[in-house]
């Protein structure tokens, strides 16, 4: 018999308590993983999306919410004219509710007809937007799947009906869940004529950090009310991502703290219940450290079980979440390996932290007194 067998059999001998503890911790692990995984996935996907289209983001200076940023669209050609600039993409963005489908945050983008974004996506049904396509939209495949809309169907946006003329696929989950219409039409609908939310600037020679700074300065010199930041800086400081990240960590910290308390409670109860057994172990010569190690082993075994169940729940949960209408277009269907590894580490940490005090108490039991409990 190996030492671990004793710990395992102690847990297996109390199946209800052990399984409840595992489930409690697993749910906490899964919740933390889903929150952090979704948050990181959101950020990563956002970063990929912007990286595909540019190196710098130009916005209204001092703005906190990207969607409320407003820049004169005449600035685009001026940026395009700067040295070191290869491509400039300007567009307007908004979030709309499609209440008939229970979707309350669908991205709407307005693009010029010749915008690379429109030409880069893959059309799976219908066609792309063209000059003069008023009252018409393209929708991402994920949105089409979630709404059941097809080419030729109508969709109501801003209390107006639009005809779906194309369904497209994109490597970005945001695009896949989005609605594209012509910039001019969205400007009209949002009552922001001649305005764009911002510009994505593709530059040349950005390997040199000095070149990046110089280009940023040149862009900002065009208009004192705009700021230019690199894509990673923009994504990292994006208000929704920051709020999402902070919320995920706060809620996860609470879940982990509750798990530690839960584990502490379970192991203390276990130690109290088994005082007699622990007293016997001490009486027949087990060192305090070995008794402590036994309690820690049991707790770590519970944690490993909880981590396995929790990771499984989280992976399944995120995959299901992707198709949950309220978050369509915002949640990726996978959890990064780094989050899975972190979850395992967190579960082990919870197991160890939750068992330290019970293990210490178990080791301090005096054999003669403890054995009277049996």
């Amino acid at each position, binding site marked *: *018999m190996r030492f671990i067998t004793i710990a395992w059999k102690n847990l297996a001998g109390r199946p209800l308590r052990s399984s409840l503890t595992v489930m409690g911790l697993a749910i906490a692990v899964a919740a933390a993983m889903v929150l952090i995984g979704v948050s990181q996935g959101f950020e990563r996907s956002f970063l990929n999306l912007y990286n595909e289209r540019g190196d710098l983001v130009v916005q209204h200076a001092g703005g906190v919410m990207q969607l409320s940023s407003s820049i004169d669209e005449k600035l685009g050609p001026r940026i395009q004219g700067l040295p070191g600039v290869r491509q400039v993409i300007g567009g307007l963005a908004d979030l709309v509710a499609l209440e008939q489908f229970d979707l309350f945050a669908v991205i709407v983008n307005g693009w010029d007809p010749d915008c690379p974004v429109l030409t880069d996506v893959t059309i799976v049904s219908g066609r792309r937007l063209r000059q003069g396509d008023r009252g018409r939209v393209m929708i991402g495949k994920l949105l089409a799947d979630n709404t059941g809309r097809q080419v030729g169907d109508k969709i109501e946006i801003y209390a107006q009906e639009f005809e779906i003329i194309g369904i497209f696929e994109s490597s970005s989950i945001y695009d896949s869940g989005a609605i594209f219409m012509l910039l001019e039409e969205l400007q009209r609908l949002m009552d922001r004529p001649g305005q764009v939310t911002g510009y994505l600037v593709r530059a040349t020679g950005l390997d040199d950090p000095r070149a990046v700074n110089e280009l940023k300065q040149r862009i900002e010199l065009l208009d004192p009310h705009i700021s230019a930041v690199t894509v990673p800086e923009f994504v990292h400081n994006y208000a929704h991502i920051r709020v999402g990240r902070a919320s995920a960590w706060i809620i996860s910290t609470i879940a982990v703290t509750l798990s530690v308390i839960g584990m502490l409670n379970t192991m203390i109860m276990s130690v109290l219940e088994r005082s007699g057994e622990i007293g016997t172990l001490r*009486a027949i*010569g087990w060192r305090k450290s*070995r008794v402590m190690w036994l309690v820690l082993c049991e707790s770590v075994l519970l944690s490993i079980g909880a981590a396995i169940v929790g990771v499984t729940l989280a992976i399944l949960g995120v995959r299901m979440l992707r198709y949950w209408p309220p978050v369509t277009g915002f949640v990726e269907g996978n959890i990064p390996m780094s989050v899975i590894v972190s979850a395992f580490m967190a579960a082990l940490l919870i197991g160890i932290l939750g068992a330290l005090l019970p293990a210490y108490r178990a080791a301090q039991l005096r054999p003669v007194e403890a054995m009277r409990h049996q």
Partner: protein
Amino acid sequence: MSDVTATSTAADYLVRAENVSRMYPDGHVTALVDVSLAVRRGQYTAIVGPSGGGKSTLLNLLGALDVPTSGRVLFEEQPLSATADLDRLRARKIGFVFQSFHLLPTLTALENVQIPMFEGPRLSASQRASKAGQLLVAVGLSHRATHLPKQMSVGERQRTAIARALANDPMLLLADEPTGNLDSQVGGEILDLFDRLHRDRSMTLIVITHSAEIARRAQQIITLRDGRIVSNESVADFLSDADATTVE
């Protein structure tokens, strides 16, 4: 009251108590008062006396499970108070058999016997299992090796506990009313087992008992009453004083 005689040398004694007293933590009840005794190597000693007389307290002190309020206990002539690692002493040199067996309920008989081996001489998992199997054979329980305590009779549980006590080949076996929960037939089998251990392994036995049968088999009988030794005599002297099936 000590049995220490002029013809015995210190090396003959495995365990000794010198003027040992033990007061309970509340400071009002004294469990043992100025008790002195000596047990030779290979000796079979019975401790008898009425309940509450201090027998178990004395056994706990001799087994390094408790410490005296005053006086001292010596094991192989080393004061326990000066022994750095009492856990190691208990694990390697002393075996305990308890009235209520104190087996771990989630482990089989074979696994229970291996428990002390984790603190004994280094053995591999297979060596531990093999040795435990041999001990179960020795106590006549090889057919119950894979059974849990709840699946065994009380006699089988006690034999498992005895096998566990022998796991690290101790010098001293301490038994606290080992037949107290057993019927006379099973109790007799346990006593026969103790006799064999004493005879075949020259093991030193100290047994607390209410059974005159155990007392008859012992070589030294110590009677405790109200925390004091009231007699310390050979079995012949004891039997001439008491002819009963139970002793107080």
